[in-house]
């Protein structure tokens, strides 16, 4: 009952059964994460390479801990995006690393499709740790895990995703996963930040926060990249906060016991008012904990599922 795939590149291409298997496996690893000795010998002798072309502390550390807790040898390589911005050395870099007998390569890159490109050319398993505006499957899986853990199920929940959908690979993966597990997904944000054709995925789109949030079981807030201000997507942070910031009165429109997720770190006073953010902080930490368990599950399933 392993994963029947070499790579984990997108949630879009995953079957519901695969997602269920990963979430179920992650539960066991959450238990391991709570032991005094948080390490098991499962991937002894396997080599996991974190190949990050984009700076990242959280995701990289999470994968690194996941690998180490499974006793794999973990190597971190931060290839600066500038040296490979033309992409010329991209395949060469990856082939070089693979020649050192890596088993799993975890790849983050500012360009969509790079993990897929490497997966096509490498024998190693490739895990997409975020590519451009495309997908960030492990983040979505940990969001799904957290929702399932708190709400018991994902099916039938109304999930509202707020903010810059266009530039959020997390949102893209979240939407795919939530829909596969049977949630009703509604997007809300400034129209320039809603990507073309996304309705075809099976979501509904709103432009007004109050309309969207009504009856929500889960609210996923996206981190607003502050440098988008003045690029034509929205005029000012002030206006964004006014139109889309989550405050107490808006929150009261949601279902009782609404779960709020945020990939962190929060821009206080932008995505959320400070008082709402305080309640949210603990959930962000919980997501981080769950992230390690989910990534252990991914490594375990990919390494164990190999048949050669």
């Amino acid at each position: 009952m392993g994963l029947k795939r070499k790579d984990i590149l997108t949630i879009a291409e995953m079957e519901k059964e695969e997602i269920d298997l990963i979430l179920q496996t992650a539960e066991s690893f959450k238990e391991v994460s709570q032991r005094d000795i948080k390490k098991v010998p499962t991937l002894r002798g396997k080599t996991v390479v974190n190949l990050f072309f984009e700076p990242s502390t959280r995701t990289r550390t999470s994968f690194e801990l996941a690998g180490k807790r499974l006793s794999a040898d973990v190597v971190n390589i931060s290839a600066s995006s500038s040296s490979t911005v033309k992409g010329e050395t991209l395949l060469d870099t990856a082939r070089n690393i693979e020649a050192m007998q890596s088993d799993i390569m975890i790849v983050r890159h500012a360009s969509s499709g790079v993990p897929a490109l490497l997966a096509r050319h490498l024998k190693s398993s490739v895990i997409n740790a975020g590519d451009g505006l495309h997908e960030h499957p492990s983040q979505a899986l940990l969001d799904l895990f957290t929702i399932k853990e708190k709400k018991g199920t994902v099916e039938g929940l109304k999930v509202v995703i707020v903010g810059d959908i266009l530039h959020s690979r997390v949102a893209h993966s979240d939407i795919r996963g939530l829909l596969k597990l049977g949630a009703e997904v509604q997007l809300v944000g400034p129209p320039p930040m809603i990507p073309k054709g996304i309705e075809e995925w099976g979501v509904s789109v709103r432009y007004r926060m109050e309309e969207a949030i009504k009856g929500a079981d889960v609210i996923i807030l996206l981190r607003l990249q502050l440098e988008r201000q003045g690029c034509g997507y929205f005029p000012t942070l002030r206006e964004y906060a006014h139109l889309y910031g989550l405050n107490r009165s808006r929150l009261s429109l949601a279902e009782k016991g609404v779960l709020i997720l945020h990939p962190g770190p929060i821009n206080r006073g932008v995505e959320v008012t400070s008082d709402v953010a305080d309640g949210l902080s603990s959930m962000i930490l919980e997501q981080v904990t769950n992230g390690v368990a989910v990534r252990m599950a991914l490594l375990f399933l990919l390494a164990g599922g190999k048949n050669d």
Partner: protein
Amino acid sequence: MTERPTRILIQGGRIIDPAHGKDALGDLLIEDGIIREIMPPDEKEGSAVSEASNGETHHINARGMVVVPGLIDLHTHMREPGFEYKETVATATASAAAGGFTTVCCMPNTNPVNDNQSVTELILEKAKTQGIVHVLPIGAITKGSRGEELAEMGELVSAGCVAVSDDGLPVMNSEVMRRAMEYAKIFDIPVIDHCEDLNLTADGVIFEGAVSTSLGLKGIPAASETVMVARDIALAELTGGRVHLAHISTAGSVRLIREAKRRGLPITAETCPHYLVLTDERVMGFDANAKMKPPLATSQDLEEVRTGLTDGTLDAIATDHAPHASEEKNRAIDHAPFGIIGLETALSLSMSLVDGGFLTLSELIGKMTEQPARILGKKIGRLGIGDIADVTIIDPNVEWQVSESDIKSKSKNSPFLGWNMKGRARTVIVAGKVIENKWGES
């Protein structure tokens, strides 16, 4: 394959010459590089000519073949000078011959840009010494294709340029474009525009829509093309200059052009085979060989482009042959260059539209011979007595597969690798010189 007998007799083929409304079986006699005679098929093989001949006669058996004027490509990126690692005059013309083309018009976005006589002359000199088909250079509209000052069109035309274009680096400033259209009237050459609003495109990678959203790639909206088509139509109306719109890819553009032509404006337009057979779905999986400008659009666009071809809104089929090295295409897709090669697949892909009932074979050949010639104002692309003997012999039924090893172009960036094709140019004759196409036997 370069023997040059004084006489060539092509026997028993179906001769299609759209310029003369001809489509019939017959024999075609070439003498000293000139079309001498077209005769009904002779029952007694070759006897009609043999009486008169006192030299060697090269007999070509064309039974079951289609004999057409040599194909003309309005839109080739030959890459020389400056990008010889992608393509050269030698490899581009070899690729052209393999695809059935006897004439290619090469775009000026070389390095240096073909914005002056010396670059034009260099290209023509290379073509003469290393090329195996005719090369007609297209000069730049503006100096350095920077979109600011007009290039010296008079000098370019006298050096041999047949049109002007800032292809790939389109003129954004409408005032500059207006002056170019006006000025080109002196020489009666078309101004060829690559219609793209660079601000709308920004750093877009593929067509904006469900596929770009799925792949997380920045989109190029359809409006990026249609906005500029609308501008060019307005400017053509203002100036009365001849405007040729390159590689039309969207439904909106086709509708605008149709309407402009109905009003009698001096507009012509081309599309490319890929816009007739592919949609943006082809990019799924991040294949950089399906990345080009304008980007592959939706199936609605494809339908409208086909309709435009059928109803004459789109005059010609051009390849937009744009070679790039594999290491460039193997980059992350947003850093890979735009463009695909097309000379060697254009004919077969276009012929599939004949099978699909969108146009007759004669109409199709017209869009690759008579029409490009008309747009250029050149007496080529036809089989009149006394015309220069540029002839392509097509085997309409041969089935073949696109394989990297068979591609004559220096670059292999085709989205059609592995495709099964039907119909191929078996022989091309360039000014009486016979080139038999050969591909790997394996």
